[in-house]
């Protein structure tokens, strides 16, 4: 912490450099979390129709750029600055634009700039996830504004609640400290948060033209599989990086993350095989992600056996939950609700049953710890869901009324790639029909 600078220097002969092992792991983990953004773009891109794959990828890449900038300017300070009261939000000016964070702190486990950047990438993924709920039908400019505002209004406060621990003079958020809810890497702030926001945005913006009538099947399942693989790879940084050190806990989290992906895949396929008669590639990719979503909060509190149970529960429950949108007729285009909201709830709540003190000192109901922790988990999950849903409804409504969030019906049918970005993803007419036209600025290139 920067405030240690003034006191710690002359008294003890501490190592003048930060811990190199922990810092090295956190640097690598942050890069792994970054690759989840293009991974998500590919995962989502394959799921949409060919006429909107570029827009889907641009929503994720655009969110990456906007959220990271907003995070450095004010988001980190809102989430990890000293609490302004009630454990609700941090001081937005304290670390604005990484103010006072750049000097090396002797003996620190890792540079605080690195921690802040690592946390910023979590915000990136969370916002990117929301895009899947409103695919094919949103204005890109409005989406970028939404990404920035949502980071400030929703992500940063919720991250403060659950991720900001009190230490010394520093007062953090209410969920982590007063309530004592457990969330290792973001079952609440990332998964429930994005899922509830996706549901809110999909409800406010409405269904796509032809939803439930026209086929809206994924245009490229090989992209979906590659994207799921990249997400899984990056998720090691997300979860094991959240140990904030190259430690035994990081190793347990690593194996738990691996196992929950495996059992998520198997459980989803089992449901498909018995319900639909076929185990599908799309189901395998979805099952991996469902397992990873659910293990995100639980990975630092359960044994490998517990992680496998979490993956099974998430894979099976999410495989059923994705059917809700057809029954209830809300167009959560790429199942952000069915996978991230439901999977996040499964993982966050299962901590109350499966936490084992052999891993991190807390026993859940099934390990003889009573229902105490389960109650705390339910409060944290419910509060995140309620706040994210309500705030997102208001934010999307505001943007729809002022800037316009949804594209015209004609543009939606023509495809947002062409209308918004003036590009097509796949050139299937190479034999003709495209005439290079030099605009006024480049007209002299012809001579």
């Amino acid at each position, binding site marked *: 912490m920067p405030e240690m600078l003034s006191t710690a220097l002359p008294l003890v002969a501490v190592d003048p450099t930060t811990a190199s092992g922990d810092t090295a792991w956190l640097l690598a983990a942050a890069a792994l979390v970054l690759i989840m953004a293009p991974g998500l773009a590919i995962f989502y891109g394959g799921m949409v129709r060919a006429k909107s794959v570029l827009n889907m990828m641009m929503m994720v890449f655009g969110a990456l750029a906007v959220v990271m900038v907003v995070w450095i300017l004010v988001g980190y300070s809102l989430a990890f600055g000293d609490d302004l009261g009630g454990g609700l939000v941090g001081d937005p000016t304290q670390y604005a634009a990484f103010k006072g964070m750049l000097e090396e702190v002797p003996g620190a486990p890792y540079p605080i700039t690195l921690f802040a950047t690592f946390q910023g990438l979590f915000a990136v993924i969370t916002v990117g996830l929301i895009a899947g709920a409103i695919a094919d039908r949103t204005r890109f400019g409005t989406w970028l504004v939404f990404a920035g505002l949502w980071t400030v209004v929703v992500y940063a406060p919720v991250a403060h609640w659950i991720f900001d621990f009190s230490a010394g003079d520093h007062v953090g958020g209410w969920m982590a400290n007063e309530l004592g809810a457990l969330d290792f890497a973001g079952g609440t702030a990332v998964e429930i948060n994005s899922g509830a926001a996706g549901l809110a945005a999909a409800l406010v913006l409405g269904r796509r033209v032809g939803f439930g009538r026209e*086929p809206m099947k994924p245009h490229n399942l090989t992209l979906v599989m590659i994207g799921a693989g990249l997400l899984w790879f990056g998720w090691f940084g997300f979860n094991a990086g959240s140990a904030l050190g190259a430690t035994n806990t990081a190793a347990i989290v690593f194996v738990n993350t691996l196992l929950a992906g495996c059992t998520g895949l198997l459980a989803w396929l089992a449901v498909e095989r018995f319900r639909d008669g076929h185990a599908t590639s799309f189901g395998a990719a979805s099952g991996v992600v469902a397992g990873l979503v659910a293990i995100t909060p639980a990975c630092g509190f359960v044994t490998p056996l517990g992680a496998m149970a979490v993956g099974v529960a998430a894979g099976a429950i999410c495989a059923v939950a994705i059917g809700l949108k057809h029954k209830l007729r809300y167009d959560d285009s790429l199942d952000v609700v069915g996978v991230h909201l439901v999977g996040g709830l499964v993982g966050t709540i299962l901590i109350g049953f499966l936490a084992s003190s052999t891993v991190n000192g807390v026993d859940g109901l099934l390990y003889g710890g009573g229902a105490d922790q389960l109650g705390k988990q339910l409060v944290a999950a419910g509060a995140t869901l309620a706040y994210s849903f309500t705030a997102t409804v208001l934010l999307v409504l505001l943007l729809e009324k002022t800037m316009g969030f949804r594209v015209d019906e004609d543009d939606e049918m023509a495809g947002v790639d062409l209308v918004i970005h*003036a590009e*097509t993803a796949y050139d299937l*007419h190479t034999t*003709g*029909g*495209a*005439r290079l*036209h030099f605009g006024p600025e480049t007209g002299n290139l012809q001579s």
Partner: protein
Amino acid sequence: MKLVTAVVKPHKWEDVRSALEVVGVTGMTVSEVSGYGRQKGHTEIYRGAEYDIALVPKVRIEIVADDAAVDEIVDTILRAAQTGKVGDGKVWVSPVESVVRVRTGDSGPAAV
């Protein structure tokens, strides 16, 4: 016998198919095609280089039908595919000399 050919907007093809099923059309050949008419093409931009794209994606539907059914089929396609905007497409009817069903060898109206 006649060949009814229709070129319609891609997102209207599912409506056309449903409407044709209602009037008893049991099969058709469908291709994804591109072309242009009065509907303008569009511009695409790649690193600042603009391309005029003349071709617009369409769906072509072909149905071989008995003479008596042709008017209803054309009407049905018109009703289902019309948006009232430029680019709705065309329907045309041409004579067919003979038709043979490959599986049975049946020919004439029995084969359609």
